[in-house]
């Protein structure tokens, strides 16, 4: 598989705090990568650096490089970055009554010139993307009236219309119930494009990601398959809870369980906070 992204020696420090420290990894075409770790580990900050949001990488607080197809991401314009990366965030709300079609048309923006109107081809791409996420019927529906899971699927469909090579998702399953969590991640998994996402639920990350990056306090602790990354000792050290790894009987995926025993509770309450 060819290398799409190369992150090397990435550091981000603000006064009195290290947000990211010496992050190194590569992303190959077609990989589905999950970034996991406790709250405040730097997961979302890493995503922001990858897409050079608000020109973070040109600030004096950051060092290291992010290269897309062997070219520094800082050399790409905001429009070019949008042509390569599609971002789906935790929650998007609009105060105005946008239809699903209106939201989908936003995905065309990075490829459109000034004054341009929608073509028949654009309309067919929108319909195709919505059919891929199973929402063909919702074209005229109001975005704000859809369920959280449906909204996430619309935003993933918008990302498909954006025709980017890498899909970035920041906690795509937050605010969703169990059914929609699986539905959204299964959909992402089947898109056959490169995906980098932050996931809070370790078992969901294991089930739907080929590769996991474990972050803690801004450092990349482990990079590998779910089985390697979800090693019980490692997770116990980071999350401060006893952990057990097992194989799910139905899916065959590596799963982890944490226990909060009485004696552990005493340790937790008397030790330093586990996360920020």
């Amino acid at each position: 598989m060819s290398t799409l992204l190369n992150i090397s020696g990435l550091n981000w420090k603000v006064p009195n705090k290290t947000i990211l420290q010496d992050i190194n990894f590569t992303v190959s075409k077609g990989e589905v990568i999950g970034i996991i770790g406790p709250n405040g580990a730097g997961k979302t900050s890493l995503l922001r650096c990858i897409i050079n949001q608000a020109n973070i990488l040109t600030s004096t607080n950051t060092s290291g490089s992010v290269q897309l197809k062997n070219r520094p991401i800082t050399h790409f314009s905001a429009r070019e970055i949008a042509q390569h990366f599609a971002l789906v965030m935790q929650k998007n709300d609009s105060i105005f009554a946008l239809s699903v079609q209106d939201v989908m048309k936003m995905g065309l923006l990075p490829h459109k010139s000034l004054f341009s109107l929608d073509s028949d081809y654009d309309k067919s791409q929108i319909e195709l993307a919505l059919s891929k996420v199973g929402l063909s019927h919702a074209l005229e529906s109001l975005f704000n009236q859809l369920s959280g899971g449906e909204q996430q699927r619309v935003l993933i469909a918008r990302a498909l219309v954006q025709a980017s090579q890498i899909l970035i998702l920041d906690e795509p399953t937050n605010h969703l119930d169990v059914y929609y969590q699986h539905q959204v991640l299964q959909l992402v998994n089947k898109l056959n494009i490169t995906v980098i996402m932050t996931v809070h639920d370790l078992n969901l990350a294991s089930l739907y990601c080929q590769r996991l990056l474990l972050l803690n306090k801004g450092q990349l602790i482990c990079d590998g398959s779910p089985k390697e990354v979800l090693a019980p000792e490692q997770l116990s050290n980071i999350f401060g809870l006893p952990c057990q790894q097992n194989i799910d009987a139905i899916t065959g995926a590596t799963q982890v369980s944490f226990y909060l025993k009485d004696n552990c509770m005493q340790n937790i309450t008397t030790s330093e906070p586990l996360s920020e």
Partner: protein
Amino acid sequence: MSKVSTRLFTLLMLVIMSLFAAITFGPADIDSSQLLACMIGSCQNQVADIVIWQVRIPRVLVALVAGMGLAIAGAILQNTTRNPLADPYLFGIVSGAGLGATVANISLADNLTIALPLAAFLGALFSVIIVVFIAKVLQRMEQLLLAGVAVSFMLASITQFILYFGEPFATNRVIFWLMGSLARVEMSNFYVITSVLLIAIITVLALHRQIDALLLGDESAASLGVDVDKLRLLMLAICAALTATIVAYCGGIGFVGLMIPHIVRQLIGVTTLKLIIGSALIGAIFLIWVDVIARSSLPHAEIPIGIITSALGSIFFLFIMYRSRAIT
């Protein structure tokens, strides 16, 4: 033809009909045959010819473009700030214009025909520069509206201070100007407002997708390649120039920018292209007819147009509040 296209076409027809109908209203007694003859250039009555070409037509045309401009400015501000209550007047534009007009009235007794609109325009731009500067210093562009309200009160208090100590005749002139009127507009005013309006429309049409991207949040828009702060500043500058030009010639006409986009969202749609076209058409119809009411309701006097728009606007505002209460 889609439902939206049909509605837009109907509105366009209403604009054209309103233009012609509004010319028939006025204190001078001109019947329809005379009116038609004067409009096609074969007028027998010279007085009627002057009334139609130098009074009524400029006035109706200025109402057309002023209504379009104020409604478009409101629509742009509401979409770029994602705030349905955004209105050009909340950014201190009228207060700035009022201060400019006051200074001109007090310090320049002569040449007010040119000095008053010019000073009002400069005052309006001055207020917007202060608002943007404050928002920049705070590094919170979303606080533009709050900064606008603060600047508006500050400039209004300076104006009132000057007026309190000013000469009574000049004070009266400023107060009447602030109430808004199309009574003294000329054809040249129409050309100036139309030029700024065209620049605003062309810019917004070019950037309509970028403005739409803001509707789902700044982060979402930035991920689609939009430079959010630059776009918002550009749109604010356009709205300021548009509103300042209109206010300079027509005085204070409030609530049009707040009210019209709300109606357009119900009838036409929420995305920028639909909102701008719809606001232009409904804004034009609205102001043409409000001006007709202003000049025809009382037998020997005019009601300042700003009084009517503010009265209608406040009722409309309460209606929206009541309706949203009923929905929630």
